[in-house]
């Protein structure tokens, strides 16, 4: 099976899942076709402890949602995962590029895109 390389950065309390204190960055090898779920499972990060998640600088998930878990990762992808302590008020992400899955998820849920969800 071919392998891909991912650069993963964990922020805040999530850093402890990869041996850091508040920030840790790791290069990770995964099988081709691996998803965000596989990546989080590798480090035993509980899904409900992630909040904002970026794949190649595209906002792909938010606190309380699971819009990114099935995203398939490409070789050399950069993934950043933030903890539930992190804030990202709407006015500072209003109009930002977002993944298709996250856009769809936000349109479907009550409360729309403005609320944080915990």
């Amino acid at each position, binding site marked *: 099976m071919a392998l891909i390389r991912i650069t993963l950065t964990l922020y805040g309390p999530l850093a402890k899942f990869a041996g850091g*204190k508040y920030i840790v960055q790791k290069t990770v090898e995964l099988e081709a076709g691996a998803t965000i779920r596989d990546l989080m499972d590798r480090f035993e990060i509980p899904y409900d402890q992630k909040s904002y998640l970026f794949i190649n600088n595209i906002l792909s998930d938010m606190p309380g949602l699971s819009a990114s878990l099935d995203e398939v990762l490409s070789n050399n992808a950069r993934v950043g995962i933030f903890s539930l*302590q992190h804030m990202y008020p*709407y*006015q500072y992400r209003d109009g930002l590029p977002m993944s298709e899955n996250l856009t769809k998820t936000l349109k479907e849920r009550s409360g729309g*895109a403005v609320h*944080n969800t915990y």
Partner: protein
Amino acid sequence: MAKQILRINMTNLEATYEPLPEKWARWAGRGLTSAVLVDEVDPTCHPLGPNNKLVMAPGWVSGSPAAPSSGRTSFGAKSPLTGGIKEANSGGLSSQKIAKLGLAAIILEGMPQKGKWYEIFINKDGVKFEDASELMGKGMYEIDELMWAKYENKPAVIGVGPVGERKLSNAGISVNDPENSPGRYAGRGGLGAVMGARGVKVMIVDDKGGPGVELVNKELYTEGRKKVAAAMGEHALTKVDGGLWSFGTNVLMNIINEAGGLPTRNFSAGQFEGAAKISGEAVAENIETRGGVGKVHHACHPGCIMQCSSIYPNEDGSKFVSVIEYETSWALGANCGIDDLEYIAQATWECNDIGLDTIEAGNAIAIAMDGGHLEFGDTKGALKLFDEIRDGTPLGRVLGQGVEATAKAFGVYRVPTVKGQSMPAYEPRAIKGIGVTYATTVMGADHTAGYTIAPEIAGVGGKVDPLDNTDKGDLSLTFQAATAFIDSTGYCLFIAFPILDIPEGWAGMAESVAGVTGLDITGDNVIEIGKEILKMERLFNEAAGFTPADDRLPEFMRDEALPPHNVKWDMEDAVLDKVFAWVHD
């Protein structure tokens, strides 16, 4: 006791107390500073001349018993940086003390004889003027210490550093914090120059024995402030051990960087490779490792329960500086290509002492770097620029005037300003919604002008779709109106986070204001009241000569694609023109 206006005339050194007039009785904080300016200041006046005034007003609930996180003072004047109306608000000790003296506002007007400078002391017995010539040239750290040594009761110290003495357009107004350090600034818009132009180096406010704040409906007030406090205590961002408590506002650094919206090297990129080293997480690691007097959470005014401030220690645990905000770390760091946290701490100390707004100061240094005066990343060279500003050299005076003057001096075309004020730490090409607020707010590019309030909580639900770009104007207007209201309450704007997600908190904010004032304010009319404030301010600016052509982002943002998303500013002008079209209906 009814609230009063304290009018201090610096031409003849007279202080008069006036009953709060009916026309201003419904306003406080930003609403009151703007109402006074509209009524008493000629919009075409020179900001540094005798016809401008500096108005200081605590918010509606400031000084009320147990109002959480409610120590904001609004400072208002015609801005020398933008040429328009300006409100900048600050934490620190001033708001609650002014309010507890029974004052709705202090109006500083007139100009003393040339070369005369004053120290003004205010307490329950009145106002005293003293010659301040021995204080001139001193930085705010020394001024704060001298004033607490001279006066009893740990008073509020409101002052200007050397930049304000020189009346430069990036002069802020310093307010001391509970430990009597500067660092709480009404920073933006050069209001320190307006204070300097009145000949006031420092103003001391001692509230001991003052009448306190009268509550018209104590039961309603108490119910309201408890709801606000409960929402703050519950919400993930504002609760104990929440995001602001743990990492301060600089919790945003890494997230905005991941989003590709972190202005870097004078707005030439949206991502900085050194962001993690200057982020809130890095600050917290250093504070915890160094120990001593360092604190990851710290109240900037009495009664703050969010405590997003921090105290950054030296390596030996002694106090270095408070506070390295997100905007500060970004402006002095990422936007100058600098990833050295110790430099940022030192540069923050310099800004606090000299009396500079850190956003405008960092942006001005970045412009000097873009113009070839220094290399990006040159920390030694950048620190020398603070010496130039402190010493008042010709170059220092240019830098102290802010970004636009610096850009002209160095022939730089990439000038990230709106209405003369430089942009904060959110790239509008990547984060398009905030670009609408930057462009249209009367304040000049300002990240605090439009805080998120969910349309359905604000009572305008169903009118806007946050994910539709064509609605960005309506959304920005709602945010700007909500912000104008919160800026009038005395509450910290960060209460917007919990009251967005917890509707009881939104209602509680309105109820606490209604309980203090007796005004008919509920969660349902907050936005309309906020729009009244916006309308006053907008019409002031129109009379000062502003037109829709001033509601635009700079040209380079339409021409230059911003990596990593390679996006340009492509918002139609019609969207921007619609935001305030209603003021003439």
